[in-house]
């Protein structure tokens, strides 16, 4: 019994002896080339100098915005009121009052 089992196991383990290589798809090259053509073009890495340049431009724009905004707000706090402007331009401000 044990001997039969050993023999059977040896036969199974030896069943790959004399095995031939399997032939793959004869059109593999065509398939591979077709898939390669579908690939997206390689993405170019972004150069660091452009990253710095864009960061610089954004910083300058941000500073200009902040400066512009702070000038506006300081003018509005110290600016002339509407009555002075109307008097200066000799305009009737009756439209501001209710009928």
């Amino acid at each position, binding site marked *: 019994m044990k001997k039969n*089992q050993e023999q*059977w*196991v040896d*036969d*199974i*383990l030896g*069943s*790959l*002896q*004399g*095995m*031939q*290589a*399997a*032939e*793959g*798809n004869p059109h*593999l*090259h065509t*398939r*591979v*080339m077709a*898939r*390669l053509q579908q*690939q997206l073009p390689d993405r170019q890495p972004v150069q660091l100098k452009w990253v710095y340049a864009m960061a610089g431009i954004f910083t300058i724009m941000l500073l200009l915005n902040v400066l512009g905004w702070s000038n506006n707000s300081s003018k509005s706090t110290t600016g002339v009121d509407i009555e002075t402007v109307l008097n200066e331009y000799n305009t009737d401000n009756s439209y501001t009052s209710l009928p």
Partner: protein
Amino acid sequence: MLNFRDNEQAFRDFITQHQPRVYNTALNLLQNAEDAEEITQDVFIEAWNKAHTFKGEAQVSTWLYRIAINKSIDHLRSKKRKKRFAFLTSLFHDSGEPISDAGDFVHPGVVTENREKAAILYKAIDKLPETQKIAFLLSETAGLSYAEISEITGSSVSSIESMLFRARKNLRGMLADFYKKEG
């Protein structure tokens, strides 16, 4: 260094030369002809894309074996994950589809009178741990030496020896159990 981009004929020759090696490695590991074909295509696409990284320190065949094994193992892992997920979903929703697609795989190059026995062996091989499976298949089906397997897998020759020893011992155990059950 390999360069195929300017020479398509060289790439065609490269595929013709190495296709059997890549396809048979994938076929033995995956035990499925369709999957093996897909992986073979993936291997040559990677070889095209990464040809510039091949510096010639190892043989081209070693480099291709590595890519083929890595891609096959990744494929097997993703298939296992999908099976596990399918099992979990089947607990809540029975779609009527079979969970496992494991069949009686026999490599088409196996001698006719050994096909039945080889089917049993492939089933047992499929149950081996990954490293043992790779070492066993490279040794038994591709006929590579311990040194070649060591270069492909990056393990030392002595660990390849021990992997193969354990693989054969495990296979013997599994086959003996099968014999007792079936006999």
